[in-house]
């Protein structure tokens, strides 16, 4: 491993890359030991039914099977969920979607496990299912959760700003459209999995998760254990993107281990099981009406947004609220009427996924903005520049922007970029039977949990006898590189290089509670805690060293890699020696940070505040997609892509690029090909041959530019960047296709057949000789 001085703002190879590139890093599924048991679940396979009986006898007789457990074996509440605890560990009375787990089998090996799972039979009384979210909401003859006061509406929210939709009457121009977005599957390469052991009354679970501390509480409650009896260890995830925000295998592992004390037991979902059982991005139906004046200024917006949350809450209410808050985009609109619903159905489970409700609303808003620009006859860039939010403005939900607001700076950067300036030339260079188009879309993404739920992190640093500073990271690194960033932050403050910094991964027994790896908060919140801890550590070791060397004060001392130097005399103390001279308690510093929140009352609905409205800090950006459409097939190819992002100051430019490029890649999959389908609740895209994610041949090289505004409250001026990249591709590509071909696809994704169909219809409506020229952006 190459040694590097750790400094803020510098591209430093990620510390975690060394163990990953040599295959040494141990993920949750990589632990094996002799005698390890395998566990797995029988899933319902039907969308809606009452369970009359589960027959486990035949399965129990399979050689190698140790036990078959059902909901009767769960000693706790048997319920999981972050907000509404409505999802059983093992289904007890009801089946609500085909992925519901009904029985847990523990066996000596995988073959016995598979054989036993096939022999479990269920007596089920079919219940009428509901698959259409509008029907579920309007005609509540079928109730998914009979105990829910809101019926099938998990949560609804409404925000009225100014005159609300009455403002539309005062507009010179009004455009209206409906949009539909499909389920999107996270498709992390590492499926859900881990292992557990119950020893001396304590349960230890090693699992691929974004939320170890919350998992501990959930497992303890669901299984009836004391909080202090559960330990969650969270290695690096092999991808998560929101899909491991909450319980996957944790309680099942715990239940299996409780029944077989002192035996390690392992669960790894296979790909089909992961696709069937895991949460996905909410499908959404959106009805948008935007009004503007002759001057191109937006005046009023009405948006109705319906999210299909599937059978369980699984953060669906919070997703809905974040979508509602972002529904009006980064624009100044005096009158808004925004309404959103998250509705229970018997469809696949929806939940957290990078962007968290925002990619759906942004797909609608950014397309309707382009439709308005076309109607008024101004360019898509000009209409955005005229309406972009500035600091001090009120955003769509009426919250005053008091923090860094870089949307205009991003738009101006795009305006001056060659990709934008030379777009006409590029479009005209299209080959035979091909049409080129360019499209832009603004993006914004709120950071953190919102005004009520404490967004807190606790950092801990230790100086070790080996002469290193050890950072105890309380937030999971699911691949986004926050662990390396933590070392860079602490290393910069403590004057160290990479050889003298080390990391402890999240573990509820070793590291301190620091919330979830989610909500674009990880580096912002934990980084702020870490800055204070590193500062305290620096002061402490310098003071101790000054005393030891009888220096006049700590101001005479400097931290350099591996040691502390007395500047006037040049005397040095190695860090390891200093650590040995300190008491064990003195070697550790901790620090807590709670993120600031908006104090503004934009809604009187306490539920909406609890679910996160309003946010205080947003990242912003603008994306540009240059597409080429094959007129003979309708296939859309993205040839060039530009993302300009204001996520504050950058600590490590390479890691920012990774986040933005990765977000764009997933967003382009969502725009062009990813469509998780279910028919009557049953998964029709069960694997990678039916659910298509982008390969290296499907994506262009992307250019990413950071507009580094300084966010005062951020660690070294940083804001979150984990999610925002995924908000742009769908509308940018849709706008590009509309720009090139004159057809607007409102039913995503933009698969070739949909594009071809619209191009053909459009051609039939027009005289064959007339060449359609479009007003360029």
């Amino acid at each position, binding site marked *: *491993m190459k040694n590097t001085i750790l400094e803020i703002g510098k*591209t430093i*190879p*990620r510390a*975690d*890359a*060394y163990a*990953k*590139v*040599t*295959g*040494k*890093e*141990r*993920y949750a*599924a*990589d632990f*094996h030991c002799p005698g390890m048991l395998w566990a797995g679940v029988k899933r319902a396979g039907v969308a809606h039914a009452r369970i009359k009986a589960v027959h486990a006898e035949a399965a129990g007789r399979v050689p190698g099977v140790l036990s078959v457990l059902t909901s009767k074996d769960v000693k706790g509440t048997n319920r999981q969920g972050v907000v509404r605890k409505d999802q059983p560990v093992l289904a007890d009375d009801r089946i609500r979607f085909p992925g519901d787990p009904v029985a847990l089998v523990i066996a000596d090996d995988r073959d016995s496990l598979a054989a036993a799972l096939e022999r479990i039979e269920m007596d089920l009384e079919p219940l009428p299912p509901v698959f259409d979210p509008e029907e579920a909401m309007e005609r509540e003859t079928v109730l998914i959760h009979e105990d829910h006061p809101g019926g099938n509406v998990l949560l609804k929210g409404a925000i009225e700003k100014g005159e609300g939709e009455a403002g539309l009457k005062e507009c010179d121009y009004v455009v209206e459209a409906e949009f539909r977005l499909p389920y999107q599957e*996270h*498709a*992390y*390469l*590492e*499926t859900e999995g881990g292992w557990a052991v119950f020893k001396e009354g304590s349960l230890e679970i090693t699992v691929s998760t974004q939320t170890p501390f919350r998992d501990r509480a959930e497992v303890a409650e669901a299984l009836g254990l004391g909080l202090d009896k559960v330990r969650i260890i969270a290695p*690096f*995830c*092999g*991808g*998560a*993107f929101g899909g491991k925000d909450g319980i996957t295998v944790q309680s099942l592992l715990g239940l299996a281990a409780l029944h077989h004390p002192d035996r390690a037991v392992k669960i*790894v979902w*296979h*790909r089909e099981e992961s696709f069937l059982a895991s949460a996905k991005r909410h499908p959404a139906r959106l009805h948008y009406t935007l009004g503007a004046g002759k001057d191109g200024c937006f005046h009023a917006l009405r948006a109705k947004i319906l999210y299909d949350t599937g059978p369980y809450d699984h953060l669906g209410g919070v997703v809905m609220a974040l979508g509602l808050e972002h529904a009006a985009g980064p624009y100044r609109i005096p009158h808004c009427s925004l309404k959103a619903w998250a509705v229970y159905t018997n469809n696949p489970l929806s939940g957290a996924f990078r962007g968290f409700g925002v990619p759906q609303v942004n797909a609608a808003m950014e397309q309707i903005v382009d439709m308005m620009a076309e109607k008024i006859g101004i360019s898509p860039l000009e209409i955005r520049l005229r309406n972009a939010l500035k600091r001090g403005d009120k955003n769509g939900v009426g919250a005053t922007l008091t923090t860094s607001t870089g949307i205009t700076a991003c738009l101006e950067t795009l305006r001056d970029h060659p990709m934008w300036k030379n777009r006409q030339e590029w479009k005209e260079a299209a080959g035979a039977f091909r049409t080129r188009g360019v499209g832009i879309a603004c993006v914004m993404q709120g950071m953190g949990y919102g005004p009520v739920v404490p967004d807190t992190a606790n950092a801990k640093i230790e100086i070790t006898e080996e002469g290193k500073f050890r950072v105890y990271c309380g937030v999971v690194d*699911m*691949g*986004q*590189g926050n662990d390396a960033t933590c070392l860079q932050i602490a290393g910069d403050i403590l004057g160290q290089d990479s050889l003298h910094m080390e990391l402890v991964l999240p573990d509820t027994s070793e590291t301190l509670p620091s919330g979830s790896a989610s909500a674009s908060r990880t580096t912002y919140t934990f980084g702020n805690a870490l800055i204070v801890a590193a500062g305290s550590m620096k002061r402490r070791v310098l003071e101790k060293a000054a005393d030891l060397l009888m220096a006049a004060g700590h101001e005479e001392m400097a931290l350099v890699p591996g040691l502390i130097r007395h500047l006037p005399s040049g005397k040095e103390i190695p860090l390891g020696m200093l650590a040995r001279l300190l008491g064990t308690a003195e070697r550790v510093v901790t620090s807590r940070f709670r993120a600031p929140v908006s104090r503004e009352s934009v809604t009187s609905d306490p539920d909406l505040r609890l679910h996160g409205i309003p946010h205080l800090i947003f990242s912003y950006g603008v994306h540009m997609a240059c597409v080429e459409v094959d007129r003979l097939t309708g296939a859309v190819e993205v040839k060039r892509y530009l993302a300009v992002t204001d996520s504050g100051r950058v600590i490590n430019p*390479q*890691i920012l*690029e*990774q986040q933005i*490029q*990765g977000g*764009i*890649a*997933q967003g382009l999959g969502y725009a062009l090909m990813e469509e998780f389908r279910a028919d009557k609740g049953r998964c029709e895209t069960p*694997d*990678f*041959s039916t659910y298509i*994610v*982008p*390969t*290296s*041949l499907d*994506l262009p*090289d*992307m250019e990413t530019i950071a507009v580094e505004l300084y966010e005062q409250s951020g660690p070294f001026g940083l804001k979150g960047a984990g999610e925002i990249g995924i908000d742009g591709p769908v509308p940018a590509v849709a706008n590009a296709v509309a720009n090139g071909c004159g057809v607007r696809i409102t039913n995503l994704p933009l698969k070739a057949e949909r594009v071809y169909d619209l191009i053909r219809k459009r051609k039939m409506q027009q005289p064959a000789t007339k060449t359609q020229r479009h007003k360029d952006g």
Partner: protein
Amino acid sequence: MKIRFTLNGKETETDAPPDRRVIDLLREDLGLTGAKEGCGSGECGACTILVDGETRLSCLMLSVQLEGRSIQTVEGIAQGDELHPVQQSFVEHGAVQCGYCTSGMVLTSLDLLKRTPCPSRDEIRRAISGNLCRCTGYQKIVDAVERVSRNSGEREES
């Protein structure tokens, strides 16, 4: 049955049922967990290994097929503590995020560079198109492979 093969340069003999999947043999019996199982059906490339220098999917191979072959896994690429130039390039150019596709990507790149020492970006994209990555968008992986070939070219010239 007894199966003899060369594993990362070492003669290896192991006792395994002939129909045991190679990925299970490597990960569970031999403790080499660098190869990952992303799908178990040959669609994602995370379990890629080199068999006689060529990429193979270890989730689709049975142990008996290893008899007499030379196998390389990601664990056998570095020389002690010194990374292979492909690995070093992946680290330096930010080609590693969650890391789950990384071992497959590294081995596929090795295979490519052996056949095509200075591939174009398109050739690199084609070569790694059987390896899914959900984090990077592939760009930095292509950068890393392109740079390692360019660097080795420079070394040969000098």
